[in-house]
């Protein structure tokens, strides 16, 4: 079994068939033994239901925890979007498929949130750079990869679709390397029946802020 060069781009080992048959104790009886295996599999498949095949797409195999599928926008504990519209993902994106419009968040501690966050899934190359770049773990990837739609417009995912869609519930999250740094929740319809941005607090008057700051300083 020494590799020889013979017209192939790579080295291909030459298999000596008779030597291999001797090593594997192959004889006429082996053929019948193979039939026995086939028959045994036939009966176990038929009566025990132990089949190696699955009914795709109704059934799917489990994907890796690090599978890079369609994106998810994560939420805070109060159900509001975690994204602060910093454009890091749009900046790093090699396919330039992320479009963000930022707005002024009424809560000055948060300051910024995305008024629109669109990902053109037809343009996306699923490299996961956006997830790596995100400082808030606001964008992660799911294990979902089904993209069949009727119009091209449907492949542009807005905030609602990125935050919650049946595929996320079915497949669960995928690539999220920064989980240890920032724990983010995935929107859950059962526990959160609130609007996307409920952490909005009432417009605070600057005077009130000043007062609270003075009080805080006094207590120090």
């Amino acid at each position, binding site marked *: 079994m020494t590799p020889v060069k013979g017209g192939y781009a790579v080295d291909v080992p030459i298999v000596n068939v008779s030597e291999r048959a001797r090593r594997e104790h192959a004889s006429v009886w082996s053929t019948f033994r193979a039939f026995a295996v086939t028959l045994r599999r036939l009966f176990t498949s038929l009566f025990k239901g132990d089949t190696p095949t699955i009914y795709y797409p109704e059934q799917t195999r489990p994907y890796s925890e690090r599978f890079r599928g369609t994106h998810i926008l994560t939420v805070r504990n109060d159900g509001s979007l975690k994204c602060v519209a910093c454009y890091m993902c*749009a*900046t790093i994106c090699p396919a330039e*498929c992320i479009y963000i419009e930022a707005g*002024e968040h009424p809560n000055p501690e948060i*300051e910024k949130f995305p008024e629109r966050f669109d990902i053109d899934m*037809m*343009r996306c190359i699923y490299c996961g750079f956006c997830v790596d770049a995100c*400082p*808030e773990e606001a964008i992660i990837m799911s294990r979902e990869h089904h993209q069949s739609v009727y119009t091209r417009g449907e492949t542009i995912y807005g905030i609602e679709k990125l935050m919650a869609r049946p595929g996320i519930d079915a497949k669960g999250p995928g690539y999220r390397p920064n989980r240890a740094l920032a724990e983010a929740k995935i929107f859950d319809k059962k526990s959160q029946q609130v609007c996307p941005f409920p952490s909005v607090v009432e417009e605070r008057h600057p005077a009130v802020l000043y007062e609270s700051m003075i009080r805080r300083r006094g207590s120090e």
Partner: protein
Amino acid sequence: MPKLTINGQTYDAEKGKTIIQVADEVGIQIPRYCYHPDIGIEGSCRMCLVEVAKAPKLMPACATPIAEGMEVRTNTERVHEAVRYAMEFLLLHHPIDCPVCDQSGECWLQDYYMAHAGHDSRYPLGEKERRLKAFSLGPLVKLDQERCILCTRCVRFTRNVTKTNEIQVFSRGHHSEIGIFEDRPLENPYSGNVVDVCPVGALTSSDFRFKVRVWFLKGTPSVCGGCSTGCNNRIDHSARPLGGGIPGYSAGDGKMYRTVGRRNVDVNKSWLCDEGRLSFHTLERWPRLRTGTGTVAAVHERFEALRKEHGDSAVAGLASATNTNEAMFLMKKYFRGNVDFRLGKEVDLYQQRQDDLLRRLDKHPNTQGAMDLGLAGEWSGLRGMRERAERKQLRGAWISFHPQLVGDDAPEIVDELQRLIAALEFSVVSTTHQFEWAAKASVLLPMAAWSEELGTYTNYAGRVQLTNRAVMPPGEAQPLHLMMAELLLLSGVQIPHEPAVIFELLSREVPAYGGMDYDSIGLLGAAAAQPVEVTR
């Protein structure tokens, strides 16, 4: 003229200057936050410390006047150490806001941190000082006290430049913070400049805030088209379509996001007025005219027929004082001198000040240029043209109309234009937007607006400055000088399309611009060969 040595090199410098000013002139970089050439010296940030021979301590370069035989070193280990400690001190309570901070990408803290500091914070993140965030100082400016480094540039701007004193430092020591008095918001007409001078993200513009991150922008040096002062600015516009192929959002032709002041000591120092700063929004006020209702060739045929029948003076052009010198020069050539530009009282007003700082009453950028070209002649403006048209002495006219970038066009001007169009046999309107009054014109042609064409404007004092193309004109719109070049080509004169070459032709014929070209005008403009006397 004292002689001083900086980093071993000897320089002659003017008496009374400080070290940092000399260093700036000769191109030696000294880090600074509080020093700004146009707002007075404070010496509070301690970033510009330099080593001066025979001085026991490091000296602030911004506040140390130069002296004969002074030996300055800016690159010793002692200086680097001082800058590093100053940076650590300034960043001690600085929040990690960079992802949401509008200044990020053009922040001096980021730049100097990367260049001089690079330390880890000794203060845990949760224990940093919390202060007021996103507080509106006025209609145009938002304050974030956490990000402020108390360089007091904004305070000195309102104290020394506008002299309105709205922004002050309140409290003392560690508690000091920038703020305004409760009943006096920052409402002066130059308030946007405090955003420009702020080296960090403490003051951000409400207009530009969160629109786009600055690293997506490209700056094009240009001139403000808001009034006859001609302040130098930089137009920041999109450098690449954001969001790639998402339909309807990609700003492929470019979109202007903001304008910032560009330093020109002879015109505007570093400042812009708020009206001029926001004047690029005027172009979004009406829907743009994208397609014309005729062709330049057809227009030329009609004009030729009218000229043959009624003589040269039956056809005239009405330029706009927002058109470039090049366009108006070609217009004058095609219409054989029968060109005027006056819509109202531009000529009386263009040198008159609106206030003590920059603004002037004439809201057109190129009134002086039109006058230098001799367009303020016997046609006596729009009114004169209308009267001649009503007497049937004027049969056909090309009306080039550019809306005022600041304020509204006077209703009587619009009325007068409507009457002119009604009285004319054949009227061509080249304009930028879909105006109702222009709908009745025989031919409507889309024209490139300010910021969409290259050319020169001459300001109130006769300074010729370049206005640049930052974005592409929408649809089929063309700069006026191209339309005029096409008309001239049809009448048998070949004119090059480059504004620079047209200006060379112009400088040969117009005595005021003799010997000038785009190279000598450059980024900062050049005074005309025959200076204009500024009387008011």
